[in-house]
């Protein structure tokens, strides 16, 4: 479904990514973990072209990511942002309808109906007419997930979806993500939630200094990492004291 081949990216003379290669199959849930500045978010942003990669190739659903193919690819690839990025001048339901109506040209009544059922799915039906500013972080992020789902994507990219949340609000977002995973959604999740990765992910990629230095089944990478850097990272994350 998503396939990266020797992807490289630089900002000026700073190397951000080098030789990043991995692939995610349909229905697979992959977590991308690693320290800050390791290039995790950049990898995600290259997949839907928010950043242009300099070398290597990226394929989504068998289609090569190029300037020409990006509009088509973006409409089949959902993205959930760390800071939600909801449109502040539109209500929850309008945020969810925005893509279907203004990208897919769906009739408004049909889009509203689908948006309402998606809000219901993420537990926010009664907040449909609230503006983002009137919602908690966890609620906003659930609207963000509903907005991504409204495009009926083939896969969803999550960019640290719980990092900007109150600790008490993390659970409600992870629950929604877990239920998506159980329904067979293809997901690539950049996260620091090792618990979520262990319980939900099929595959874990560990990034450090712009490279994927370890990848494999979640259980293996998280419980018996082979690479020293991964061991160090996990020991610090799991036992910070």
């Amino acid at each position, binding site marked *: 479904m998503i396939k990266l081949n020797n992807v490289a990216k630089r900002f000026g003379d700073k190397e951000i990514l080098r030789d990043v290669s991995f692939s995610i199959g349909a229905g697979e849930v992959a977590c991308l973990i690693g320290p800050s500045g390791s290039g995790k978010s950049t990898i995600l942003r290259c997949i*839907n*072209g*928010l950043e242009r990669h300099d070398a290597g190739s990226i394929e989504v659903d068998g289609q090569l990511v190029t300037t020409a193919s990006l*509009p*088509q690819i*973006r*409409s089949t*690839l*959902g*993205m959930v*942002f760390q*800071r939600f*990025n*909801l*449109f*502040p*001048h539109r209500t929850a339901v309008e945020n969810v309808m*925005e*893509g279907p109506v*203004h*990208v897919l040209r769906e009739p408004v009544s049909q889009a509203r109906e689908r948006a309402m059922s998606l809000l219901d799915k993420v537990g926010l039906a009664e907040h449909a007419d609230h503006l983002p*500013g009137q919602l908690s972080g966890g609620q906003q992020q659930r609207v963000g997930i509903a*907005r991504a789902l409204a*495009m009926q994507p083939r896969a969803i990219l999550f960019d640290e979806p719980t990092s900007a949340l109150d600790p008490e609000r993390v659970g409600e977002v992870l629950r929604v993500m877990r239920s998506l995973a159980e329904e067979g959604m293809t997901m690539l999740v950049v996260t620091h939630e090792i618990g979520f990765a262990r319980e939900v992910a099929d595959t874990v990629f560990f990034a450090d200094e712009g490279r994927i230095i370890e990848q494999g089944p979640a259980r293996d990478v998280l419980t018996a990492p082979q690479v020293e850097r991964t061991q160090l990272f996990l020991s610090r994350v799991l036992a910070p004291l």
Partner: protein
Amino acid sequence: MQEFASDAILFLPVLMRGLWTTILLTICALALSIVLGMGWALLGASSNAFLRGISITVVNVVRGIPIIVQLFVVYFVLPEWGLDFPPFAAGVVGLGVAYSVYQAENFRGGIASVDHNLVEAGVALGMKRSTILSRIILPLGIRTALPSLGNTTVMLLKDSSIASTITIAELTREGQLLAISTFKNGTIYLLIALLYLAASLPLAAGVRALERKMARK
């Protein structure tokens, strides 16, 4: 005081007619300045360096010339090149163009204030540039620009008095004519000042209400 009252009753109908022309002139020039100003702002936000250059040049040139000179150019000079405007139209064009550069600044500030993350959210949804502009950047940018747009409108209302110099019978011009023929300078200019205030104070109050509403968001 009694004399002021009786004079006022005598002069007010004429001055009210002038005020009406002032308001009409302000509204028309405002509309033109908004359309042109949005144009300059969009050119200025373009990715094309040539279009940005046009916008910067227009703004700097127009901003650097006194409004009264611009009105004279439109009313006295353009006819020599075959562009003959009647006084009112010349006033609308002159004031509209002069104020378009301030509107451009207002819109530019509004557009620049839009959170780039929201643009990325639109891009990630697969929106085209034009959709991002019309659905995200303009609604949010204009909202932010509204208070300063209101302030600009108050300034435009007052500066419309400059159009008295090209024979438009707006409030100041009607007052001048009355003053010349009656020598009641004190009464007439006091009335003119009060009428401008009566028109601009509600506008200013509207701007403050808008600002309060924005602050709550």
